[in-house]
């Protein structure tokens, strides 16, 4: 008899709670735009913010409302842009892949620290103490703030500077926004010629700070047949709209801060860490 009451009681409570839950879920249902969910399903889910929205959810609802363009997801690339375009039934404009590039070649063999830094081991903290322990005030500090935020683990610290593996870079730009020195820039994937320096000091000072620095000698500016290179603030700057990747400037550069590079396309196994 006691068992029967116990059974009935638990059963009754469970039924009441079940009915209540059912009622609640019907009464307080929140309508979700099905298009937003479809768009959200295509997105990679890195929540990197490269699109300019707070996260993938935010961007998806903006696309579903029609206020955002479908080609803003940089980690997703052209595939995702095309998928979103198909869902929304709109034409997708051209999509250009970008990769992160560390414009500093001040590795341990090229530059010496002026002080020994023993504080919190992050670039952000180090840069707050007189701009960091490097001789060069502009260069990579090498404590790996960028490597810590990279969602795909494409950045490793090697010989005192950040090295970015372009084949695993999804172009989200998190590292570029994290770097307190601003040496990481986002450049087009098909770039062949780069300036491997961010130092805007005058030639002699830049040379003293780092063996690999751009000294602003203007040899590249004179040699470039297309007028793509200009020296601004003692630092060579390449206009990628004019650059024809001829490589003449690379041969002319006396310090080797102009380099010919090749950014491999993204590897199939690039995985986004949770």
């Amino acid at each position, binding site marked *: 008899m006691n068992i029967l*009451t*116990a059974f009935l*009681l*638990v059963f009754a*409570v469970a039924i009441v*709670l079940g009915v*209540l*839950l059912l009622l*609640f879920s019907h009464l*307080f249902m929140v309508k979700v735009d099905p298009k937003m969910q479809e768009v959200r399903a295509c997105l990679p889910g890195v929540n990197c913010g490269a699109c300019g929205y707070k996260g993938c959810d935010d961007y998806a609802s903006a696309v579903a409302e029609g206020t955002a363009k479908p080609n803003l997801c940089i980690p997703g690339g052209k595939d995702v842009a095309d998928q979103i375009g198909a869902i929304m039934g709109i034409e997708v404009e051209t999509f250009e892949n970008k990769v992160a590039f560390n414009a500093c070649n001040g590795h341990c063999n090229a530059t010496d620290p002026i002080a020994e830094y023993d504080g919190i081991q992050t670039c952000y903290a180090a840069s707050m103490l007189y701009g960091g322990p490097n001789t060069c005030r502009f260069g990579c500090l090498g404590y790996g703030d960028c490597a810590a935020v990279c969602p795909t683990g494409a950045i490793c610290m090697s010989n005192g500077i950040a090295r970015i593996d372009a084949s695993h870079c999804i172009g989200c730009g998190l590292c570029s926004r994290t770097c307190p020195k601003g040496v990481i820039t986002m450049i087009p994937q098909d770039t062949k010629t780069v300036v491997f320096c961010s130092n805007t000091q005058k030639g002699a000072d830049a040379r003293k700070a780092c063996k690999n620095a751009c000294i602003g000698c203007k040899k590249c500016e004179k040699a470039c047949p297309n007028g793509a290179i200009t020296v601004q603030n003692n630092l060579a700057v390449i206009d990628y709209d004019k650059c024809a990747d001829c490589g003449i400037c690379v041969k002319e550069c006396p310090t080797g801060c102009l380099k010919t590079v090749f950014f491999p396309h993204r590897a199939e196994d690039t995985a986004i860490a949770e």
Partner: protein
Amino acid sequence: MESFKTLMIILLSSVLVDNYVLSRFLGICPFLGVSKKLDQATGMGMAVTAVMLIATAVTWPIQYLLLNPLNLGYLQNILFILVIASLVQMLELLLKKFSPALYSGLGVYLPLITTNCAVLGVTINNINDGYSFIGSMVSSLGCGLGFLLAMVLFSGLRSRINDANIPAPFKGLGATLIAASFISLAFMGFSGIVENIFA
């Protein structure tokens, strides 16, 4: 029915002396898991406080109006778990509808409270201590506030631990657990205080 003085003793002793996390070691999972950032810790603490209050308001009548008259005290655990789990689900639906900002802020922590032993512990202990309905509500408010206090204190401590230069073997969970034990030790200093405050 407890007097005002008794209620204050219940409140203060459940916040400081019998702190659920630091003295009774219940609800350690969210204490270690969600205390990395101050805002998350505060959100979790508030959510747990709210759920404790609602759960007590529902389970106290169940115990005294259903289980005791029917002599089914042994069903306490299973019924309370059932009720708390459903309550959290309902609260989740309500929040989703009326406060989407809070809902997305709490995120996964709200469903996690379903299986939080501190909530079950509060409801069962209220019955075991023989509190009246008002006493039970005050006690669960105190336990919730105690949980919030522990979370906030510990999240502050953890942000300092993260910035410190810790020997490699203690990095991560090791240093965290040691710090938790220190806070727990510090809270032992409160024992015996509360009864004498109102003397």
